[in-house]
């Protein structure tokens, strides 16, 4: 039975309450880097939330999700390069481009299964990588510097780091809430049922392909938003954002945090990026620890952090 003090709920509440206070703490501790780090965490958490939708809830093992970070980012970057700085133009373009890409890739990839699906999503992401790396005008391999962040109406100023942080946080909260409602809706039940047993879903009469495709597009679009944020955050975008190993990083965040749980991706992004910072100050070879750690998690703690919190709390899964 649920104990009086539920560890998982406590962790969630703590997280939800602490995140808005980061800029305050950063100012008090006179540590601006903290704000930069957490802005990045929040943006990657949003990307991870979008991946969790198709991977955790939908069971679609896409290895090309980082492509949308690149597409969203390059939409902002390319338009900025051409002198179009208005966020009201850039961001809808970023979303539309991501949605279109997801639609085309999804339509083709979702006809395959299992390992083939993994490979074909990976391949399409690599194709996107090569496409942007091949356009000299936008920096090619070296990437594209963004000299001016997306402009919105005053008083919203994205170059103000604190304002930008709160914008990203608001979008993370909003995006997570949206995904949460989505997965519990009728649409979400179809997606979850398809993950659980696609053959049965078809047998009871659901045309599963179209639901998976719509889910895929929604996830890609949301990640494109994260990409637009990331480009603004770094004032830079390069093809490296889309390299297939970056998709791997996103998957790690989702699994580490706990799949098919609304806030799992938050834990995953937080822990992974904080770990990265903490471990790299101990040794520059920190990935030597992360690598086997990942393997151990896969073998022994498959439910991720969220799963572990549930176990500690004693709550039935």
């Amino acid at each position, binding site marked *: 039975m649920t104990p009086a003090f539920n560890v998982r709920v406590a962790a969630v509440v703590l997280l939800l309450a602490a995140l808005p206070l980061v800029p305050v703490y950063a100012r008090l501790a006179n540590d601006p880097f903290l704000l930069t780090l957490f802005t990045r965490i929040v943006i990657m958490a949003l990307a991870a939330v979008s991946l969790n939708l198709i991977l955790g809830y939908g069971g679609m093992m896409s290895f090309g999700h980082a492509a949308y970070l690149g597409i969203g980012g390059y939409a902002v970057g390319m338009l900025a390069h051409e002198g179009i700085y208005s966020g009201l133009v850039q961001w809808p373009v970023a979303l539309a481009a991501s949605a279109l890409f997801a639609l085309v890739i999804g339509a083709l990839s979702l006809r395959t299964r299992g390992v083939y699906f993994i490979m074909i999503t990976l391949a399409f992401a690599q194709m996107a990588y*090569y*496409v942007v790396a091949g356009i*000299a005008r936008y920096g090619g391999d070296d990437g594209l510097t963004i000299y001016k962040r997306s402009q919105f109406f005053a008083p919203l100023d994205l170059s103000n780091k604190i304002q930008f942080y709160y914008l990203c946080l608001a979008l993370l909260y909003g995006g997570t809430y949206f995904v949460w409602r989505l997965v519990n809706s009728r649409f979400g039940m179809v997606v979850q049922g398809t993950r659980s047993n696609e053959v049965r879903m078809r047998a009871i009469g659901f045309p599963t392909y179209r639901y998976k495709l719509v889910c895929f597009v929604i996830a890609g679009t949301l990640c494109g938003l994260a990409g637009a944020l990331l480009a603004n955050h770094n004032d830079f975008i390069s093809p490296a954002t889309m390299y297939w190993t970056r998709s791997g990083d996103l998957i790690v965040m989702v699994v580490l945090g706990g799949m098919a749980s609304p806030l799992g991706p938050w834990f995953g992004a937080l822990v992974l990026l904080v770990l990265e910072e903490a471990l790299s100050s101990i040794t520059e070879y920190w990935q030597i620890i992360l690598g086997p*750690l990942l*393997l151990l998690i896969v*073998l022994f703690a498959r439910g991720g952090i969220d799963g572990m919190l549930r176990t500690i709390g004693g709550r039935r899964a």
Partner: protein
Amino acid sequence: MTLLVEQCLNGLQFGLLLFLLAAGLTLVFGIMDLVNLAHGSLYMLGAYFAATFAAWTGSFVLGALLALGATLLVGMAVEVVAMRRLYGRDHLDHVLGTFGLILFFDEAVRLLWGPEGLSLPLPPWLNTAVEILPGIYYSSYRLAIIVVTLAVAVFLYVLVMRTRVGMLIRAGASNREMVGALGVNIKLLYTLIFGLGAALAGLAGLMQAPILTVQIGMGENILILAFVITVIGGIGSIRGALIAALLVGFIDTLGRAFFPDLLRMALSTAAASTAAPALSSMLIYLLMAVVLVFKPEGLFSTGNK
């Protein structure tokens, strides 16, 4: 004309090299149903070991042989320590677990050899040009690669088609459970097969080393190609891997050789030189997409999912 012959041979050589890599991957895939992202790391290790041992012993061939042995040992060690626990699990588990191994190996190499990368110079007797057709010369080393990989391909054919072990491999590729039921020492078989795959990857890595630089991350780049080949050829099929590898090798090499000129006719030189390598890389993925649209199981799938 000379250029065409040379590029075709390069395509053949690259394709055969890719075949070595893809064969190991598809074997492990087809028989143990294991998605091994760390296959590229073994390729990298082969190159690093070869560069190191060749420098120590002063002999290219000796260095290569030692490297082969070392990679085989590392492969078998990895199988016993890590891979064994992944058999039978979800593919996502494989992907994540072996992704973790990639991180580990990349950092381990960086720790042991530094971030700079190594080079493996060719001994003089390999660094010559051979006249293969009247007036047409080709690098003797690349010819050597072709010869060696063809020999390995023949060896694999004999192994898979004519020996008892090969029979088990073929049986395992189409029906895993049955092989276990036949009372064969599955654990040992799997360790050996994984070791074989690792050795093939290491061989590919060490042979490629003098041509490209030996550096961290070389595995990740070529791994994708190997996977694409496996998918195009059909999981579990060595024959499929060979044909797909040759296809990919030719397309990639000829694309890189002739695309820049083709593009320069349409674009500015600067744009063309950036776009050309990108486009030729894209061709491979386009090929895979096309194959998967018409034959989602690959060209020669063994049907073992």
